[in-house]
């Protein structure tokens, strides 16, 4: 049985095409994934990300606890700021990628992937035994009462101006305009108590996440739509993050290729030199030193080619497999752009080919193949910069 967010009925009434994702019934698009992608790049889009896990970690040892389980340096995280980090297991493998928001001196919000929510909570509870003894709560569980929070993402160049309309006073508007990247503050939006953070998963720098009570998420959702935001589904979320070069758990992190931050250019979120020891530190370092394969971003040279997907092979000019596609989606200009793990790093401008394997494999070419039979044609691609230029 798929879980539903508080916005499920709102998605259906907007004509959202619903699909299963991480155990939740979520909108993949409303009218057109492509138009939704463009809306975020040029104006402002609104995503229901209330399927994502929101945890609350409180107590005098909350900082020490998070520093022990997460790879980033939590001891350096100031109140009103956030950081991206990983949970590693004892073997140094990625359990999940997370965002840590410090909302008060001894209080942190931790946002985790929907599909990993239960696994993460179980892992964190097991590590919380003994000296840490933090108050660790799932803010999507009804037992959190008035403290319950879910995440909505408002992303794109017009998102700041739109959000201003919902703020209560000039002081809040000033706080929003002074909010740096990764900052967070508490305010009200259209009368609803909310944490507003300047974070996101689209590659946009004017971008916010809004943490509200699920009972108020529907009213806030409609207030944001009325103010001019375009509802966007999971397909646009995926194409925006792929174009931006951001990893998705199960594709560019962990997953069938067992990828880790050092493979994908995110090693700087694993702070080997931080004062605190953290779970997986030594094994991660050994694993990182031995690995040569690297993630690249690529763009297909032509439009109208078959889209590739996780697992499709990357070939060099001689037809040798030198990599594996991890994600692929249509970019702002209408080309297919993707991420691929290559056996070793490659500079932007390097050409390769991708074979988009169809569900049904055609007959292989053989001598005197009958006219009209089909073979697989590799499509040319070019490695581009690891990150999208704005």
């Amino acid at each position, binding site marked *: 049985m798929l879980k539903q967010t508080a916005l499920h009925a709102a998605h259906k009434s907007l*004509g959202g095409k619903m699909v299963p994702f991480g155990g939740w019934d979520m909108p993949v*698009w409303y*009218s*057109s*994934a492509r138009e939704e992608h463009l809306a975020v790049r040029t104006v402002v889009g609104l995503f229901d990300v209330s399927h994502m896990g929101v945890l609350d970690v409180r107590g005098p040892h909350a900082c020490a606890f998070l520093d022990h389980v997460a790879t980033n340096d939590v001891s350096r995280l100031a109140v009103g700021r956030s950081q991206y980090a990983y949970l590693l297991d004892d073997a140094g493998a990625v359990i999940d990628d997370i965002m840590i928001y410090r909302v008060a001196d001894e209080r942190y919000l931790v946002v985790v992937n929907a599909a990993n929510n239960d696994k993460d909570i179980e892992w964190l509870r097991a590590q919380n035994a003994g000296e840490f003894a933090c108050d660790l709560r799932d803010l999507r569980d009804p037992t959190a009462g008035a403290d319950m929070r879910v995440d909505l993402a408002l992303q794109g160049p017009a998102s700041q101006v739109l959000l201003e309309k919902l703020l209560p006073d000039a002081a809040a508007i000033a706080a929003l305009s002074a909010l740096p990247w990764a900052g967070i503050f508490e305010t009200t939006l259209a009368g609803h108590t909310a944490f507003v953070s300047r974070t996101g998963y689209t590659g946009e720098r004017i971008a916010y996440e809004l943490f509200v009570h699920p009972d108020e998420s529907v009213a806030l959702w409609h207030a944001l739509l009325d103010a001019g935001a375009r509802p966007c589904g999971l397909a646009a979320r995926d194409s925006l993050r792929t174009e931006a070069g951001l990893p998705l758990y199960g594709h560019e992190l962990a997953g069938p290729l067992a990828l880790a931050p050092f493979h994908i250019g995110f090693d700087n979120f694993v702070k080997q030199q931080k004062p605190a020891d953290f779970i997986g530190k030594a094994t991660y370092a050994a694993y990182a030193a031995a690995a040569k394969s690297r993630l690249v971003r690529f763009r297909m040279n032509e439009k109208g080619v*078959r889209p590739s997907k996780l697992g499709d092979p990357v070939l060099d000019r001689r037809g040798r497999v030198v990599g594996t596609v991890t994600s*692929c989606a*249509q970019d702002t200009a209408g080309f297919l752009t993707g991420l691929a793990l290559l056996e070793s790093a490659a500079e932007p401008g390097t050409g390769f080919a991708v074979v988009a394997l*169809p569900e049904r494999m055609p007959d292989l070419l053989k001598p005197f193949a009958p006219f*009209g039979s089909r073979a697989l044609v590799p499509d040319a691609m070019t490695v581009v910069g690891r990150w999208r230029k704005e």
Partner: protein
Amino acid sequence: MSKSLVDANARYLKTHEWARPAGEEFVIGISDHAQQAMGDLVYVELPRVGDKVAVGERFGVVESVKAASDVYMPMAGEVVAVNTTLETAPDGINREPYGEGWIIRIRPTLAADFDALLDASTYQALLDAEEA
């Protein structure tokens, strides 16, 4: 999804392909319902002019980033034209599934195959049941 359109002059397969008479020949494509269900199309595989295809045989593939679907022949015949603009602009099917997004034109083996297809009102009833 918004309510999908049905071309009253076409007849349909349950798998959402349509055929529409054009003189002695027939134009074939996929329905508005099918393109909405697929989402933005990014790739179309077409047959060649001269291919002879049987009823119910797969003659092409349409793919969005999220899904791939085979396309089946509503009528037997020989392909006399293919819409090659779809190779570079597959989203023509999203814009006008019954217009610029046509896929192939055929010379039918048996024009009476057309009568065996679902008429527009029967197909509409099928969609109403599916979309309800």
